[in-house]
């Protein structure tokens, strides 16, 4: 009896060992090329793991790996935007599992740097490459003297419009928001099925960019004094912008569909919306959508202005490469963050295959990029005509260390506004109050 018992224990122990052995060997292979989406060219070189969702990124990685004997990039696509941030956030909390280098939109850098999840890149030579990036994008990636990421692409804004629909309805291309309103009314009276544009209540950074055009500076924050924050989301500029949009909504001149749903995507390309207020990555997004109207004729114009004499340029989105504090070799990771999009070849892939708008000035200023003609826009040189100007005028923005919360609250307030429950200035006053309460709860000293 006893020996039988011991024998069974032995069998279980062996089985358990086999199981853990399995797990252990899986783990070892994980840290090498097994989990990389790309091919490792030089197996002996140290590897740096990278999370990124850029389209056509594999070619950029291949370019990097082929030209480096000292380091290899192991790339994983961990999802776009919030999908990736959720994974990153969890790995910060569990203190393991984060990659060495991660793609982050500049608007969330403060949210992660306050959790000590990102490495200040100044000690790894970030400032040496400062001249190679636009002023606005560099400011977005830094906080005080610290530089938390290397900019990659930006989102200077312009107005994509359906030239054919404009001509059919006899509408001139608006250059100011007043003209834009007239155009919206004209399109409606022309008997069109669609509307001029959609105003999504879940536009998040898009809505914020519209406010910024009227001079709104929602947050003052600097990682050198990480517990102080200034919140001013209900300034008169933002309120005027919101009242303008609310009157368009209440008059039925624009729709308020949620952005980035299947319905919205179809409406973008089938002529339901005649205008797509977009960032420079918008054309790429548009081309990736299905169900497009085959006869559509698209063109790009500058974003309408509040004051045509003093144009203000704004930015929507744009991403960067940051080095996480879990990186084993931070210097090597910083090298990857700096160099991976630091060549003209890589950028050519980024521009042509990924439809990215570079923050990298050698590419931005090159004749190739300036004069590039886009077949989708009938050969229009959209960079020269619109986006380069918009990018040059953008001076950077500051985001809060709880940006996700701020955006969720903004969505709730805007939805309540378009439902007719409150006006624009009430919405922003409520937003201000809820953000102040939240910041205080989170231990910040709040200054208006």
């Amino acid at each position: 009896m006893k020996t039988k018992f011991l024998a069974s224990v032995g069998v279980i122990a062996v089985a358990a060992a086999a199981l853990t052995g399995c797990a252990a060997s899986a783990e070892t292979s994980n840290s090498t090329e097994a989990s990389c989406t790309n091919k490792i060219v030089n197996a002996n070189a140290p590897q740096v793991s990278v999370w990124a969702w850029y389209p056509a990124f594999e070619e950029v990685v291949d370019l990097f790996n082929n030209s480096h004997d000292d380091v290899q990039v192991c790339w994983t696509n961990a999802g776009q935007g919030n999908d990736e941030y959720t994974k990153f956030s969890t790995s910060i909390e569990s203190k393991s599992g984060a990659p060495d280098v991660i793609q982050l939109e500049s608007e969330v850098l403060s949210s992660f740097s306050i959790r000590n999840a990102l490495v200040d890149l100044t000690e790894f030579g970030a400032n040496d490459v400062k001249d190679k990036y636009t002023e606005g994008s560099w400011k977005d990636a830094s906080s005080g003297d610290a530089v938390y990421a290397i900019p990659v692409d930006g989102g200077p804004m312009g107005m994509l419009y359906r030239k054919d629909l404009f001509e059919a309805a006899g509408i001139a291309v608006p250059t100011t928001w007043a003209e834009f309103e007239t155009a919206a009314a004209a399109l409606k009276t022309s008997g069109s099925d669609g509307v001029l544009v959609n105003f999504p209540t879940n536009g998040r950074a898009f809505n914020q960019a519209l406010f910024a055009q009227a001079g709104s500076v929602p947050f003052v924050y600097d990682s050198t004094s990480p517990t102080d924050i200034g919140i001013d989301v209900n300034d008169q500029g933002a309120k005027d912008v919101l009242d303008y949009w609310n009157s368009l909504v209440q008059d039925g001149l624009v729709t308020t569909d949620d952005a980035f749903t299947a319905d919205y995507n179809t409406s973008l390309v089938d002529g339901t919306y005649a205008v797509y207020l977009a960032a420079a990555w918008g054309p790429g997004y548009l081309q990736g959508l299905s169900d497009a109207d085959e006869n559509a004729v698209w063109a790009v114009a500058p974003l309408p202005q509040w004051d045509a004499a003093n144009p203000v340029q704004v930015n929507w989105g744009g991403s960067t490469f940051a080095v996480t504090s879990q990186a084993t070799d931070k210097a090597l990771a910083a090298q990857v963050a700096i160099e991976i999009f630091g060549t003209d070849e890589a950028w050519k892939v980024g521009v042509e295959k990924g439809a990215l708008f570079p923050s990298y000035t050698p590419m931005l200023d090159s004749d190739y990029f300036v004069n590039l003609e886009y077949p989708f826009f009938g050969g229009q040189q959209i960079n020269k005509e619109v986006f380069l100007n918009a990018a040059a005028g953008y001076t950077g923005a500051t985001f809060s260390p709880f940006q996700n919360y701020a955006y969720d609250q903004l969505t709730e307030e805007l939805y309540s506004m378009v439902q007719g429950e409150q006006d624009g200035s009430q919405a922003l006053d409520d937003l201000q109050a809820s953000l102040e309460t939240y910041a205080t709860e989170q231990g910040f000293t709040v200054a208006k």
Partner: protein
Amino acid sequence: MALTEAAPKPAPNPAVARPARRPRTQIDRMDRKRQRWGWLFVAPFAIVFVTFLVAPLGYAFWMSMQTSTLATGTSFTWFANYGKAFTDPIFLEGLGRVASFALIMIPAQMLVALVAALVLDNLSTALSKFSRLMIFVPYAIPVVIGALMWGFLYSPRFGPATDIFGLVGLTAPDFLSQGTIFASLVNIVTWQWAGYYMIIIYAALRGIDPAIYEAARLDGANGRQIALRVKVPMISSSMVMVLIFALIGTLQFFTEPQVLRAVAQGAIPVSYTPNMYAYSLAFSYSQFNYASAISFALGIVVFAGSYLFLFLTRKQSGLK
């Protein structure tokens, strides 16, 4: 499980008495030997159970006793988070919302399930077998897929409602607006779960001795009377079980609103239900500690609710 619970319990048989007692030392030796084997057989389950349920629960509870804020770091605060949770208007509003879901959704599901089961119990054609399968099929579809599907069905552009209402010259309602989202969610859940509850009730009905129906018929009861006066009371313990399943599921409502939120961010805010609130606190706002407290607070409410309910229905469920 449903079948075993529904089966009538065997009456205790006085004839099978315990064997005569043996000397104490002998029992101890036997017991110890048996227990050793017992533990060994239980071990595979116990290891998984402890690793993946008990330990994470303990860890989450430990986390819920600490407060961490973005600006000031973590500190141990005993039950402060629970005090905050039970006075948090967002959490309480979410609880109120799932309570109203429970009030509407559970009766709706049970009614559909009960009627379907009673009808199917009376029929014995091939069509009834087919119908039984069809009513059950939605349960076989993963919840996320089901919710995604309904998201498209509700869509004004891709859904059939616009066409159907258009046939009679009406405009279809927007199923994803603030005013209609509640009913839309009730519909999804009822569609998905009524079939499952129907199977449980149906199994209980099959377990009733047909002789009872014959007796009822001899006493002059018609079909409706047999259904309502004989069948329903006899399966009340299964009904109570279904109700408790539905109650727990509704209080933990998460997947359907979370999936539909992708197409209706305005109508379904991030804190629509307590579980969604806990999820967004943890994964969007990185407040893992407070999220743990919210989860435990919800757990307490679910436990108290279920206990109270079982206590109130102890007669029907046969627990007493």
